[in-house]
């Protein structure tokens, strides 16, 4: 490296890094671990913002006839909440963890294309900023509203110029499009990494389940995200060049948008959920002190979910009037996908059965996950029955269902994952006591809010309404729903405090605090930038067990 003057060089070498130099290092990094951390941290920031938007909505709905926010603001809140939670929280959480863990778990030094990885992160981050800039810039020259207010699935013809003038909808369209570009890049990266960068002996059949889930959802992403991007290009052409893709006045079809959107939108749920299954599949065995039960069936179920998920999308459209053939097909495919998902639940239960279970915080969250996600799956099967769906479509029952999936499923698993891998990422343990408070408060708050929503839905309360009259019998349920919110806010605050405090004062973790078996625990905490001093050689599904117990390696038992 060329330095202009020797004095400068010595000064650089002796003085500690300034804040600016630190920031610069993070901005120019192509290290998968740093990018993974940045993904997850930005996702948690967007999670807090989107959570506050939801809290405002719940405040508005706490009692009949309230006017805490104006109606048009309410529409913006649910649009921004949904869009953020899916594109700026769920996806970056999943791909952030994948970024961090996949190379470590398969014994690689980085992802296959580190610069593409950095590109993916930064374009995602700026897409998120663009979306939120709409609060300031969406007003534009038209004075017709700030943030987008078309709902997170932005149905046509509401998105046409006639119904949403101004640029608010374009902010939604372009920022989600950009986020999608970044995600496609990262998905290509993860597929290429898992297929070509594995350490010696790390065969496909020995990959940790989490890596399998990331491979599956990355491959799915390549099939489902470009169609959304294509539909968004069409919407852009409709809005700016006068094309008629979704313009019913000129013979176009508004239903086509629904098909294109849900062809992305439904598999997307599995893209978010399946890595959650991966977290649970890594955590449950370690805290049950047993090998995962039925590795092969778990992998098969993962891949099966990935495949079947591509043919379930139109169950979001039973009430559109597709005709009985299509309704039947999509009802059956939706019921079918419950089979591999159910298999997984039994896999985890069988892993715990007879194990010496250690109820540390990651395991607590996984146990909560099992209960909550089972509920989510059962209401999912209920909604797959088309006539039942006709009764409850667009009601709070549906809202309750998908929040059970994404919070009860994905987020409980993610919280568990944060407690489980935080020691590896930072070298320090999170506080177990605060973790317990976080878990229990969140379980209680979550159920107060979302279990009750099922009832409002059954009583006929439609989603996305701004307020409601007092004579429907919904007021008590809505109040309870809203009362669950502060508990979840406190629980999330506890997590934030726990992270901030533990970063400075947490107990040093050591390389392998949980006595785990996968490769990421074989290196130091935090891992060096090159991950492993010597790339390990793998001989079984639990390489670290083999290292710790050379007298009783796993290989012969598999």
């Amino acid at each position, binding site marked *: 490296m060329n330095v202009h003057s020797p004095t400068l060089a010595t000064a650089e070498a002796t003085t500690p890094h300034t804040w600016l130099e630190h920031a610069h290092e993070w901005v120019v990094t192509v290290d998968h671990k740093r990018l993974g951390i940045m993904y997850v941290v930005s996702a948690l920031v967007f999670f807090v913002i989107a959570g506050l938007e939801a809290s405002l909505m719940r405040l508005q709905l706490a009692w009949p006839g309230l006017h805490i926010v104006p109606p048009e603001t309410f529409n913006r809140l649910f649009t921004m909440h949904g869009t953020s939670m899916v594109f700026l929280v769920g996806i970056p959480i999943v791909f952030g963890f994948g970024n961090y863990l996949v190379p470590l778990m398969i014994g690689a030094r980085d992802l296959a294309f580190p610069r593409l990885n950095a590109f993916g992160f930064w374009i995602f981050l700026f897409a998120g900023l663009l979306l939120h800039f709409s609060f300031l810039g969406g007003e534009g020259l038209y004075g017709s509203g700030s943030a987008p207010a078309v709902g997170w699935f932005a149905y046509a013809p509401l998105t046409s110029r006639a119904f949403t003038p101004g640029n608010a909808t374009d902010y939604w369209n372009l920022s989600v499009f950009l986020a999608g570009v970044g995600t496609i890049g990262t998905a290509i*990266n993860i597929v290429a990494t898992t297929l070509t*960068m594995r350490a*010696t002996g790390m065969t496909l059949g020995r990959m940790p389940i989490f890596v399998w889930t990331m491979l599956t959802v990355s491959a799915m992403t390549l099939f489902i995200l470009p169609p959304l991007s294509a539909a968004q290009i069409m919407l852009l052409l409709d809005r700016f060049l006068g*094309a008629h*893709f979704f313009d019913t006045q000129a013979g*176009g079809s508004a239903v086509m948008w629904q098909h294109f959107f849900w062809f992305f939108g439904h598999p997307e749920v599995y893209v978010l959920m399946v890595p959650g299954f991966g977290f649970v599949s890594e955590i449950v065995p370690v805290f049950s002190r047993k090998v995962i039960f039925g590795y092969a069936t778990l992998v098969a179920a993962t891949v099966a979910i990935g495949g079947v998920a591509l043919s379930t999308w139109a169950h979001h459209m039973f009430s559109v009037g597709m005709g009985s053939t299509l309704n039947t097909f999509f009802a059956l495919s939706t019921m079918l996908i419950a089979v591999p998902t159910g298999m997984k639940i039994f896999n985890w239960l069988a892993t715990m059965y007879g194990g010496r279970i250690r109820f540390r915080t990651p395991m607590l969250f996984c146990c909560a996950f099992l209960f909550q996600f089972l509920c989510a799956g059962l209401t999912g099967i209920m909604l797959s029955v088309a006539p039942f769906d006709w009764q409850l479509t667009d009601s709070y029952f549906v809202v309750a269902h998908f929040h059970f999936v994404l919070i009860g499923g994905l987020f409980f698993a993610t919280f568990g994952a944060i407690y489980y891998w935080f020691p590896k990422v930072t070298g320090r343990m999170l506080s177990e006591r605060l973790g317990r408070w976080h878990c229990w408060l969140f379980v209680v708050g979550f159920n107060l809010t979302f279990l009750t929503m099922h009832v409002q839905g059954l009583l006929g309360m439609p989603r996305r309404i701004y307020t409601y009259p007092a004579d429907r019998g919904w007021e008590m349920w809505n109040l309870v729903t809203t009362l669950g919110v502060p508990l979840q806010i406190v629980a999330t605050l506890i997590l934030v405090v726990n992270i901030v405090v533990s970063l400075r004062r947490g107990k040093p973790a050591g390389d392998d605090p949980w006595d785990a078996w996968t490769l990421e625990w074989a290196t130091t905490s935090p891992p060096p930038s090159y991950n492993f001093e010597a*790339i390990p050689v793998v001989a079984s599904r639990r390489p670290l067990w083999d290292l710790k117990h050379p007298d009783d390696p796993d290989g012969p038992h598999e």
Partner: protein
Amino acid sequence: MMGAGADATHESGVSHEWRGRAGMIGLIVAEGSLFAVFVVAHLFYIGKSLNGPYPRDVLQIPVVGTICLLASSATAALGARALARGDVRRSGLWLLVTAGLGAIFLAGTAREWYHLIYRDGVTIGTNLFGTTFYPLVGLHASHVIVGLVMLGLCCVFAATGVLRAVHAERVEMVSWYWHFVDGVWVVVLTVVYLIGR
């Protein structure tokens, strides 16, 4: 770079040299599903235009362009193969021929669009045919342009002596991309000019 190369040899469990190919296959799958949606939209709207001009009145099958583009796939493959043998000069020439054939195709598209817009008065907003025709053909044409940029760079590198036999895999990836663009054209030709008319 040296370090990475050394690692690849002694880690060697899985073939690291395949990662570029895996990445390109991933890109092609993603691009394929992007095109698929435009193709589906076009198929869905065939015959649903409320007013003319209709495709049978204004569209001609672009025979010359198609022949050029299909032929350019062969020349791209020859270029990649020549570099793998270490013949930089020949490789550069074949890639130049490929780019030339691609440029002829693109000129054909430009001419077609010019006639459609100024003679026949079909724009993207005229009817559903225009709405689905321009984005699908335009998306393909924009991919041809990207391919031409990559091929052009390869030609420049070959002419200036930067391109060497070690870059054979990268040039092969460019040729894969070009084959993909070619394959998409076969679908577009079938859907727009054969079925759509």
